[in-house]
């Protein structure tokens, strides 16, 4: 594992210095800082609106960061020949890939953590409150978002073993949109038989073939301010979501390793 951690640590160091990622992060942070003023424009002007806006910005920024960070991880290493010096050492290809992935997950977690901190500060200042009771949704949702983004990063990592970064960017983006917006609908069709048999079958296949990112969402109602404790059902939902993400990530990484292992570099 020493090799994996060494590669992961280097990946983190490189990721947090990449200009394009820093720019995306800065734009995300800027939006998060001005989110409270957007809330004032809202007719509802409620706490919930501020949370929704902040989490929405956080989610989109994190997804762009996850894909942008991961699509170039392997191609850059090959193009710059760094991978040759690494693989000429006693390092298996799976260790390299795993190290790269873990590094990207750590870098993503740090970025999501930083954005979460800004969201909490902006929320606290605007709402004039620092009670844990009120800010807890702003901790729980980003926490689950780390797993969501880790899953998205694994999708990009898999694609990066056989497609170019540009194609990977669009493919990963499509998977993200499908898995976030459309897959929950397919899941309902597949499960409840609301549609015809053929549609149900297609819906089921699509539902299992594409990760369902909404499994890692905390229900908006459960994430509202005032939810002091993680309620029992919510804890189960979060645990299920984490298990789902970990299993899915493992499957994606195994497939990625199988492809990468035979890849001509």
């Amino acid at each position, binding site marked *: 594992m*020493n*090799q994996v*951690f*060494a*590669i992961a*640590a*280097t990946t983190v*160091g*490189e990721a947090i*210095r990449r200009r394009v990622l820093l720019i995306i992060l800065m734009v995300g942070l800027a939006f998060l800082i001005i989110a409270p003023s957007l809330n004032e424009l809202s007719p509802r002007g409620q706490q919930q609106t501020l949370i929704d806006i902040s989490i929405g910005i956080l989610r989109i920024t994190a997804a762009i960061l996850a894909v942008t960070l991961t699509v170039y991880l392997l191609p850059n290493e090959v193009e*710059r*020949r*760094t*991978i*040759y*010096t*690494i*693989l*000429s*050492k*006693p*390092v*298996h290809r799976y260790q390299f890939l795993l190290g790269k992935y873990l590094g990207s997950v750590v870098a993503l977690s740090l970025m999501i953590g930083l954005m979460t901190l800004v969201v909490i500060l902006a929320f606290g200042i605007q709402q004039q409150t620092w009670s844990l009771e009120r800010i807890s949704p702003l901790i729980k949702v980003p926490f689950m978002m780390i797993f969501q983004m880790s899953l998205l990063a694994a999708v990009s990592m898999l694609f990066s073993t056989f497609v170019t970064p540009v194609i990977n960017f669009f493919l990963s983006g499509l998977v993200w949109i499908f898995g976030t917006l459309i897959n929950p609908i397919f899941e309902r069709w597949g499960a409840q038989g609301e549609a015809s048999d053929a549609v149900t079958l297609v819906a089921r296949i699509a539902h299992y073939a594409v990760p369902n990112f909404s499994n890692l969402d905390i229900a908006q109602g459960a994430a509202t301010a005032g939810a002091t404790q993680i309620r029992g059902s919510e804890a189960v939902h979060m645990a299920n979501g984490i298990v789902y993400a970990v299993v899915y990530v493992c499957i994606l990484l195994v497939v990625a390793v199988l492809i990468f292992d*035979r890849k*001509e*570099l």
Partner: protein
Amino acid sequence: MANAIETHELTKAYTVRGGRAFVVDHLNLQVEEGEIFGFLGPNGAGKTTTIKMLLSIIYPTSGTAKVLGEEVGDINIHRQLSYLPEKPYYYEHMTGMEILDFYARLFRMGKAERRERAERLLQRVGLADAGFKQIAQYSKGMQQRIGLAQCLLNDPKLLFLDEPTAGLDPIAHIEIRDLILQFREEGKTVFISSHELSDVERICDRVAILNRGVVKAEGKLEDLLAGGRIEITAENVPESLRDKVQQDGAIVSLHEGRLIVDAPDTISTDGFVDAIRSAGGKIISIIPRRRRLEDLFVETIAEAERGGSVQEVSG
């Protein structure tokens, strides 16, 4: 002596429109332990592809290869070898010390050992004062030296160096060349792919010249470069002497009394000198010219392009 590298019918082919393109074509190569072996060839000859196959970075289409007595693909052999790719890139945000620490971690070395080796190697490659500078601030020569330092972290038995002196200034060039010569004194096997023929001629024991994936010449340098030429220059030589000095293999030029004879070094110079002197000519110089690797390279590739066979010199 045992072979550090051994390939048998090693082949790399790609499917292209209308057939197969052979990048490396049934390569049979033996590199002995402890020698510096020059692997030469024009661009696209298959040199880097061969190295990549020996390092399991790409996989052969057919044939076999052994490195340090083990089949390629066994990751454990990588503990005893190193690779310096052409135009390498090192993470620019890291310092020289951090780079060496990173590569040492890949060998699962402990922290104290990593530090000790990194400091010693920075000293050895002349970067002791630049160990805490970021790679981004390194010159090309410094980057090449840190590359060699990372190659030495595991005290390898076998080093693969791909164009180690390409694009370096003369001073850096000499420094890298001297470092490679030290490797031989330490008993390491060095496999160099290079276009810098003057370097190869100075440091290599044996060479192979590759063209379109096929070895066209192979052997000890002293054997391959045997058979130099002699250039004799004289003045006040009458035109009538031209036919007398013309011999097999000699190129004779006589213009306005100035005679230049370029002949194989197997000829007797006495005959020329006597003939010139007796005709009233004056010998200006007799210069033996050793055959250069560049000459051999150009001749071999030109002959290969004309469809010539393999030149093999045993020994």
